[in-house]
């Protein structure tokens, strides 16, 4: 474990050195991702000029909703920084045969393939997310209990684990297909469902969609569970949700590991 941690630290250091070599580009990347985020925040502010709550009686008024948005920013920025750049590179590695060099290394292939690149500029959104959360927490109608504050980081890690599993499974699809240029598109469209509180998915279509995105692809648990624990009153019902998120994270990790390993077993080198 220590060996893996020190290797990861080396990867991160190399990436940081590279980012700092092209400093203007790094700043530009930070600014662009902050631009998208600012635009989305402006949209939510606009929505709240027409309503005081997202969904009647859901409790997602302005401050709790912004705590929800902040949680989404934090989780997504961790995934975008730590796992997405490597997963995107894998697509090219499979096509060119560069994957062979990774497979002969005396290290776990999944670790190497999913964590060898770190995109530090993606942390910019996460920092804004932390700032937004710090702004929202004292303004919440129900201040979070110490227990909720303790559970929150753990549930954020669960959310990251679920998203990581999804990235790994999409990457495994790359190995099967030989090339998957739309990896990022799939990712965007899937994670799109986790952007809003689960309560908005109601009615004859929303109910089944909510069930699908909770139990089959647990994308709705990613942001909803930690955000709900911190921004909504902590009741006995919350425990079911928390256990559900922990189980979903564990199961996703195991399943994605299995899918990735079986995809690697079927890999046929592309290089000569």
């Amino acid at each position, binding site marked *: 474990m220590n060996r893996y941690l020190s290797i990861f630290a080396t990867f991160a250091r190399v990436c940081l050195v590279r980012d700092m070599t092209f400093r203007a580009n790094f700043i*530009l990347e930070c600014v*662009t991702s902050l*631009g*998208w985020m600012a*635009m989305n925040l*402006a*949209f939510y502010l*606009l*929505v709240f*000029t*027409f*309503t*005081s*709550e*997202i*969904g*009647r009686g*859901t409790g997602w008024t302005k401050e709790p909703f912004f705590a929800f948005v902040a949680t989404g920013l934090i989780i997504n920025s961790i995934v975008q920084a730590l796992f997405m750049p490597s997963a995107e590179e894998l697509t090219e590695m499979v096509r060119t045969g560069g994957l062979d060099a990774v497979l002969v290394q005396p290290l776990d292939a999944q670790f190497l393939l999913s964590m060898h690149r770190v995109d530090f500029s993606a942390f910019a959104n996460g920092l804004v997310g932390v700032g937004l959360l710090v702004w929202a927490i004292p303004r919440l109608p129900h201040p979070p209990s110490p227990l909720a504050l303790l559970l929150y980081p753990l549930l954020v890690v669960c959310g990251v684990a679920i998203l990581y599993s999804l990235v790994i499974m999409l990457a495994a699809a790359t190995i099967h297909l030989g090339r998957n240029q*739309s990896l990022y*598109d*799939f990712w965007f*469209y899937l994670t*799109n*469902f986790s*952007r*809003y509180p689960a*309560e*908005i*998915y*109601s*009615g004859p279509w*929303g109910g089944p*969609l909510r069930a699908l995105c909770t139990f089959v692809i647990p994308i709705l648990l990613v942001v909803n569970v930690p955000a709900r624990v911190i921004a909504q009153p902590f009741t006995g019902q919350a425990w079911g949700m928390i256990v559900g998120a922990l189980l979903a994270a564990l199961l996703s990790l195991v399943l994605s590991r299995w899918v990735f390993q079986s995809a690697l077993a079927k890999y046929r080198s592309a290089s000569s």
Partner: protein
Amino acid sequence: MSTTAGGRFAADQGFLARRLHAWRVWWTMLVICLEERLVYRGDFILGTLMRFLPIVTQVFLWTAVFGATSSGSIAGYSRNDIVAYYLLTMVSRAFSSMPGLAGGIARGIRDGSVKKYLVQPVDYVSYLLAARIAHKLVYYAVAILPFAGVFLFCREYFPPIPDWSTIGVFVISLLLSFLLGFFMEATLGMLGFWFLEVSSIVFAYMLVQYMLSGHMFPLDMLADIPTGIPGLSVAGLVRFLPFEYTAYFPAAVWLGKVQGAELVRSLLVETAWVVVMAVACRIAWWRGTRRYSAFGG
């Protein structure tokens, strides 16, 4: 006298032959591009259907917003209007969005491949336009199936079909939005003659475009937000910019949100923007090629 008339006749014939040749070249370019695009038809259908997914979340979000307010209308839109609006902006975007155009032009400038258009008797902007029309024609031929399916499925959200004149204006606004989108992105790509790498400029453009075109929400929602200038709201300010014609305007025409004198004024402003951007694109090409130093092999 007869010699002069004969000379003019010959000159006319020469002009006609040249025009005919130019059209034939353009037609050939269109056919080649059509064949090229048809190779990826499966990818197109999947991609088109996936593009409707973000609308699903937007529809649920607005349904929740309407559920929480007592009023049945927001900025003049009922909940059904909003669903119809988002679906109609998908049609507008199918005409006005130009994926890869600016980036492709800048890449050609950077790697030097643009110079083949400088030595061939082919006008580069016309070639790009032909390629884009081909791209769009194939896209419509394939995308009409998923589009028709989604619209049929969501038909109850739409108001009754408008009269023929509104449909006519809707079609004109879509065609103009195609030209506007094309010339705006092509001009951005031509900035590559000066900056080489335009990806950050294109990103900034996409950002502004996404918000101010009405792709994200109906622009009427900005009507009550002040700009600081007395008597001018953000919506009023946005109305002078070209972006709204690439998503909001065609959708608003179909839903009857723009009518009468306002409709005529908007169509004229849209046409003016097309002309301005077409001229800007030409100027950028002329001036750019003059300072171009042909990088790459």
